[in-house]
């Protein structure tokens, strides 16, 4: 029976995902499931087969005469501008004329069926003049390749303090990349309309950008292009800019042929032709005192950006923003090097460079701990932000909300860190083949787009005359539960059951000029925009009630599906009907922009982040030192999501992010051969975590006492990215197990991904030093 005194689906309630029933019955519609309009054609991309060179001759005659082929589209068919770059730097052609990576699109074939288009695309005869190529950071540095975008320098204090530091350590860390492997691949279905119109159904995190880029390529105003996204089968950053290409090709073909055109690459082409997480080489030097307190840090962060700029500027910036993780660097100098390479352009991926910066900070802490023969957790805690004069980041933002001392202490206590570390050391002292490791690592992650103007959002809410509510906002749903959370915000504000709120697909027709659903900001931004729309509606309803019922404004109250008007109580739908009859506007557009933030990139100073999200993880692993194989025996997590909007969804995000982070650091290895061909282009060779890779014991808790110091939506915090980096605990635990073979005398310096192969090599290396 329904509780008459409350609503279902208020904020803070563990309401199931809005599409839960549709997901378990197979009725949730993804782009490839949309009924194709009659006459739909299928496009397929023809990809380059060399890493760098000029196309001397492109013979497409066999492609054109293949069965079912309707047309072939190339650079000359792009009506306006053969470019799909997201950032206006005009360095990302839709169809390449000079090849800059292996797998770059050079033409598209359009056929009656997808199968025919796929087969025909293989028939092109291409003559290239090959040019020298550099596919990784080291090769690019040696070849003197340029940066794809301007680098960043962060500086505070006086780096010459390094010279006076009691101890100094220098090192290099190689941090691997990662393929998104969203289970639903890239896809676009473009349907031409009258005039210059085209409607694109797709699976992007950034509908507005697709709209703008397609309009730019077609040479039409943005108002002619509509982009719809109901849901994605995973995004993780891989659909922030990468969908631009597919939407442009589908739209160009659809307008040229005046027929609907669908484009969906197969998995191998998707992995070959779309960007990934940047891999980094970090060169660092850290100076510290006898206690292990950091005196100075100098770091150079070289990133494989691929052939164009894409998001590499902000990604490498964010790497520097997280080069401190949770630690105060009294004197610091950090430089980014966003290097061009002849590989696919790397792009956004959960954490957006932050994990790569953060993990080098953890390496430095480990270096100090091994050097001083101390428990790494002690070194970590010693260097946390906090205390007089120890709260300023390398980008000159003051850390005001640090709760890591409490989080790490509570986690260490609840998961018995001290006792278990002693037990691990005792186990390893027996000298067996199986070695154990244990590590507790913290995360501090800055929340806001560092491009300040992206921190805005809109929402559109209609209340229909029957009382039902239509909710629309600029955020996209990729499984993270954003739609559910925003619906809860609306249900809570209007005090109606969440079931009365219909969540509708994201479309550029309803909320314009939206930002990508990225940077973990979805519910922060769209939740507040939706609340603003609700506040406007409530104000109108209140004014109407005051006028009609002669009550004082404060006697108007929405509560539990009813409207309280002084002593009178009216059902929500009846009251809405009255308001409609009295000609009250029952539709509102809400808006929000994040306050307080500012950032001056030139000076490297500002407050790029509205707040920080925190967390800590404790992982214990077992390593077979004869094979390098390992398993995660147990992980405990305590994570801060502020006051949770939906604890079930937030916990799922924390668990999923941790495991995905584990994949990044352990099994997921990208491998390009010397020709520049990605050899790990399918799940047969690219290993993402399976059910059996999950920690054997996995205790995940949200810090239920936490709340955001800033007035975010219901004092909640962003959750998408921060817990990804909790997986660093697994890497450091593996390191400890490896280090045990040399009595912990040396920092194991495990690079990532720490595949069993790499772990075994580290064991052998350390054994050689004994």
């Amino acid at each position, binding site marked *: 029976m329904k509780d008459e005194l409350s609503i279902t689906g208020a904020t803070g309630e563990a309401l*199931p*995902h809005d*599409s*839960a*029933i*549709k*997901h*378990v*019955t*197979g*009725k*949730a*519609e*993804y782009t*490839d*499931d949309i*009924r194709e309009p009659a006459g739909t054609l299928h496009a397929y991309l023809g990809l380059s087969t060399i890493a760098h060179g000029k196309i001397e001759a492109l013979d497409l005659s066999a492609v054109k005469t293949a069965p079912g082929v309707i047309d072939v589209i190339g650079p000359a068919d792009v009506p306006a501008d053969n470019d799909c770059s997201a950032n206006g730097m005009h360095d990302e052609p839709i169809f390449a004329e000079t090849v800059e990576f292996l797998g770059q699109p050079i033409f598209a074939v359009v056929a009656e069926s997808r199968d025919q288009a796929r087969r025909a695309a293989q028939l092109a005869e291409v003559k290239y003049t090959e040019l020298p190529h550099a596919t990784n950071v080291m090769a690019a540095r040696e070849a003197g390749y340029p940066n794809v975008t301007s680098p960043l320098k962060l500086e505070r204090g006086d780096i010459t303090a390094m010279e006076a530091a009691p101890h100094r350590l220098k090192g290099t860390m190689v941090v691997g990349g990662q393929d*998104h*492997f*969203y*289970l*639903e*691949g890239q896809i676009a279905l473009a349907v031409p309309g009258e005039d210059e119109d085209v409607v694109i159904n797709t699976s992007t995190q950034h509908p507005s950008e697709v709209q703008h880029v397609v309009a730019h390529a077609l040479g039409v105003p943005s108002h002619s292009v509509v982009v719809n996204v109901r*849901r*994605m*089968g*995973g*995004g*993780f950053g891989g659909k922030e800019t990468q969908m631009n290409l597919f939407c442009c090709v589908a739209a160009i073909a659809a307008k040229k042929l005046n027929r609907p055109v669908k484009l969906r690459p*197969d*998995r191998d082409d998707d992995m070959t032709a779309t960007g990934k997480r940047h891999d980094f080489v970090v060169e660092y030097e850290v100076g510290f005192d006898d206690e292990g307190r950091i005196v100075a840090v100098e770091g150079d962060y070289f990133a494989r950006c691929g052939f164009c700029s894409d998001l590499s500027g902000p990604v490498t910036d964010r790497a520097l923003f997280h080069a401190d993780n949770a630690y105060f660097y009294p004197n610091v100098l950090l430089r980014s090097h966003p290097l061009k390479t002849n590989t696919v352009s790397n792009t956004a991926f959960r954490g957006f460079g932050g994990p790569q910066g953060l993990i080098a900070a953890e390496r430095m802490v480990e270096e100090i701990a091994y050097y001083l023969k101390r428990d790494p957790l002690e070194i970590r805690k010693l260097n946390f932000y906090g205390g007089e004069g120890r709260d300023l980041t390398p980008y000159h933002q003051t850390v005001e909300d640090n709760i890591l001392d409490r989080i790490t202490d509570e986690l260490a206590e609840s998961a018995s860190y001290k006792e278990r570390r002693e037990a691990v050391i005792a186990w390893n002292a027996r000298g067996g083949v199986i070695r154990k490791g244990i590590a507790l690592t913290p995360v501090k992650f800055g929340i806001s787009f560092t491009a300040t103007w992206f921190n805005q959002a809109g929402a559109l809410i209609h209340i229909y005359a029957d009382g039902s509510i239509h909710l629309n906002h600029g955020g996209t749903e*990729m*499984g*993270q*539960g954003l739609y559910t959370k925003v619906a809860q915000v609306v249900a809570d504000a209007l005090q109606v059951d969440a079931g009365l709120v219909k969540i509708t697909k994201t479309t550029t027709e309803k909320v314009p000029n939206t930002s990508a659903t990225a940077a973990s900001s979805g519910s922060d931004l769209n939740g507040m925009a939706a609340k603003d729309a609700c506040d406007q509606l409530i104000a109108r309803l209140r004014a109407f009630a005051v006028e009609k019922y002669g009550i004082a404004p404060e006697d108007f109250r929405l509560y539990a599906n009813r409207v309280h008007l002084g002593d009178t109580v009216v059902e929500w739908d009846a009251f809405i009907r009255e308001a409609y009859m009295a000609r009250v506007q029952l539709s509102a557009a809400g808006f929000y922009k994040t306050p307080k933030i500012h950032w001056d990139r030139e000076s490297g100073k500002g407050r790029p982040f509205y707040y920080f999200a925190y967390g800590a993880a404790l992982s214990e692993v077992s390593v077979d030192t004869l094979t390098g194989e390992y398993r995660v025996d147990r992980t405990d997590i305590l994570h801060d999501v502020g006051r949770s909007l939906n604890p*079930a*969804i937030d*916990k*799922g*995000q924390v*668990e*999923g*992010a*941790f*495991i*995905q982070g584990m*994949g990044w650091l352990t099994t997921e290895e990208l491998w390009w051969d010397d020709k520049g061909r990605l050899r790990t282009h*399918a*799940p*047969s060779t690219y290993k*993402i*975590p*399976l*059910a*059996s890779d*999950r920690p*054997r014991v*996995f205790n*995940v808790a949200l810090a239920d006492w936490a709340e955001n110091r800033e007035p975010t939506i219901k004092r909640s915090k962003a959750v998408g990215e921060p817990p990804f980096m909790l997986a660093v605990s697994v890497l450091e635990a593996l390191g400890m197990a490896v280090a045990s073979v040399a009595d912990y005398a040396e920092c194991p310096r495990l690079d990532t991904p720490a595949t069993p192969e790499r772990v075994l090599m580290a064991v052998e290396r350390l054994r050689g030093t004994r």
Partner: protein
Amino acid sequence: MQTTLSINGTEHRLDLDTRVTLLDALRDHLGLCGSKKGCDHGQCGACTVLVGGRRINACLTLAVMHDGDEITTVEGLAEGADGGLSPLQRAFITHDGFQCGYCTPGQLCSATGMLGELAEGWPSHASADLDGNYELSQEELSERMSGNICRCSCYPGINAAIRDAAGAEGRK
């Protein structure tokens, strides 16, 4: 080639090219889009369906090979005339066994088949012996479900849901 497929209790007569996979027959010819195409290589499990109660990757088998076979897809998992959710489907909701949902149809079909295999005493790589009497331990469950990838990594929820449903069905 004329082929008759019995899908979720309904017979469908199709005239198919012999190279059409069962997955494409379901999605493109019958409009049953619950089964997903994740990798098209038989490696991700998103297309898992049940053929005669056994789970298979629909992308790796040809439709014409299944003339007369009884096929169950995610659309057919709901039990009873009223289409009420199966215990497994309900458990996936209760335990938050998905995020983006793209792997969910495959996970559900796979788990349904897996519980049947377990009940029939099929061993797995994680089984200690071959006596045919297996508990649904975390090891067994993870091993038996390792053909179904979840990139959102909802494995904790998926595992909890399957164990819950297995208990709710009074087994096993």
